[in-house]
């Protein structure tokens, strides 16, 4: 088990190198000068641009720049933005916000998605099942953008104005965990739908597996069969999905973060690409790759808990 974890962690290195190299080269290839762009619609004097270009090694060849970056990274230094200021500092705060948001979404996915899927699977083919399926289809086909705006307006603005109930903050991350409820739900939307369907299918399938039939034949109570035997096995693909989703939720929440004004990684990434802030872009991606790989490792280890037949060596 310990060796397995170490081997898996070692495998992170090539993935990390690959990802930073890929992103670094793509950002490098982007047209547009990050320094000149800072002036907006106006023009900076050429000698000032030259001064800044030199300061940030922007005129070095690609591999030299990459090496600069990588050697800094190995010492835990994420570099500096072209507007001055450390990248690590920018990322640290945003990472926290993104993590909170993603975890809220993940909890909602698990509770609502797995719950609904469980409910539907036990009522397969009945009206409740069809209703749940229809609801998931609806959830998938309504864009995040729409759910975000509508929920913010209804539960954030209007509820407060009409009833005085001030439970859901309209935007920002000032109110602790409450700040993350609405955006978390909006972000989790499609994933809830997928998880519901996934849980429903796998659970229904395991309920027909031989070992469950054996358990039924043995006369075990239904509650015990479903809860202890079927559900545990059915959770394997669900956990896999959740593990892969964490990274996505953290890095791709631009729209949700924008609507709810949460200063997270998604927005920062979006803006940094626009501003050609290579160190920020690569820094965030490196972090997200780490999150992704570690989440997957945890998921793999969870398999053994869920299915005792799985062993690591």
């Amino acid at each position, binding site marked *: 088990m310990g060796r397995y974890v170490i081997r898996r962690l070692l495998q992170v290195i090539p993935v990390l190198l690959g990802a930073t190299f890929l992103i670094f080269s793509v950002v490098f290839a982007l047209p547009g000068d990050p320094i000149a762009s800072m002036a907006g619609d106006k023009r900076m004097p050429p000698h000032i641009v030259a001064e800044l270009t030199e300061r940030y090694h922007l005129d070095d060849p690609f591999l030299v720049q990459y090496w600069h970056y990588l050697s800094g990274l190995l010492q835990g230094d994420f570099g500096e933005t072209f507007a001055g200021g450390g990248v690590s500092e920018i990322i640290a705060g945003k990472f926290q916000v993104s993590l909170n948001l993603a975890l809220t979404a993940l909890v909602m996915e698990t509770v609502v998605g797995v719950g609904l899927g469980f409910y539907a699977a036990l009522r397969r083919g009945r009206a409740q099942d069809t209703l749940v399926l229809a609801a998931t289809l609806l959830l998938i086909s309504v864009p995040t953008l729409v759910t975000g705006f509508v929920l913010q307006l209804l539960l954030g603005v209007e509820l407060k104005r009409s009833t005085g109930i001030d439970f859901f903050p309209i935007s920002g991350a000032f109110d602790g965990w409450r700040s993350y409820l609405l955006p978390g739900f909006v972000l989790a939307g499609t994933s809830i739908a997928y998880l519901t369907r996934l849980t429903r299918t796998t659970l229904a399938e395991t309920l027909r597996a031989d070992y469950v039939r054996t358990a039924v034949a043995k006369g075990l109570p239904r509650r015990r069969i479903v809860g202890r035997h079927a559900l545990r096995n059915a959770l394997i693909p669900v956990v896999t999905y959740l593990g892969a989703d964490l990274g996505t939720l953290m*890095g791709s929440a631009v729209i949700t973060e924008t609507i709810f004004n949460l200063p997270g990684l*998604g927005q920062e990434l979006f803006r940094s690409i626009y501003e050609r802030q290579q160190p920020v872009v690569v820094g965030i991606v490196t972090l997200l790759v780490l999150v992704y790989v570690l989440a997957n490792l945890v998921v793999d280890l969870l398999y053994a808990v869920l299915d005792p037949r799985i062993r690591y060596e």
Partner: protein
Amino acid sequence: MSSAAPPKGAPPKTRRARHAKASGRGARTARPAGLWRDAWHDLRRRPLFTVSAVLIAVVLVMAAVPSLFTSVDPYDAAGCVLGDARQGPSAAHWFGTDNQGCDTYARTVYGARNSVLVGLGTTVLTALAGGLLGLVAGFRGGWLDAVLSRVTEVFFAIPSVLGALLILSIFRTGTVWTVTLALAVLAWPMTFRIMRASVITARGQDYVVAARGLGASAGRLMFRHILPNAIAPLIVVSTINLGVFIAAEAGLSFLGLGVQSPDITWGLMIADARARFHEAAGPLLFPAALLSVTVLAFIMLGDAVRDALDPKLR
């Protein structure tokens, strides 16, 4: 976009499914390609399939011959009168007019082509690239599999919005083809994983071992024996993804990265209409409705196909 992925790493079920069915149906399954014939037979009787197929057919016709649906050519600037912008529905403009005073109905109809092209193109590209690589990786295993798997991990770990942004920024302008390519580059790891997983299962089956024993070449083993038996999950996922890609194009357009005007896509129409939604809802609602219906139709079709290919759950 990538949240559209089916359970990553979920074991494929089709092979087992086929065995289960073979024992139940007797003589009819003895014919070659029985799975597909069975599935088709089964599909035709499903209302889910009929409804989605009809919807998809309408959208496809719309994409192929938009002039069947409207006599207005929205690509002709003379048809847009700025002074008539943001009008409600009328006899002249069934869905009203947009911010530039163009006819929303005609634009929605003509938008189908590019949206469907992006969906189809991306699906075909990902199915081909991901499918082939997955087939080879799953069949050969070893270092090739290890390298390809690590590569897909890199892609999975990079947020899709970022990826699309980067790729499209390099191309500078979004056209149907660049958007298709960008989406495909990001989505192939998904099909790769599905194909690889089902190939690994199929590889160990008795008949493959037998064929190998009889001296079949690697190519023959892969394409003649393994592929037909491992492709079902890929088909199911691709069908669903077609709709998802169409929606993804709309998402890119919202971020200003999708197909650019004067080309018309539903996503572009939605993005353009969004800022003025309160004054004129039509230019947003109509393409959005058609988009949602199309996406739904493909997801329902995918569901129907999966159920047909996997009769165990009936």
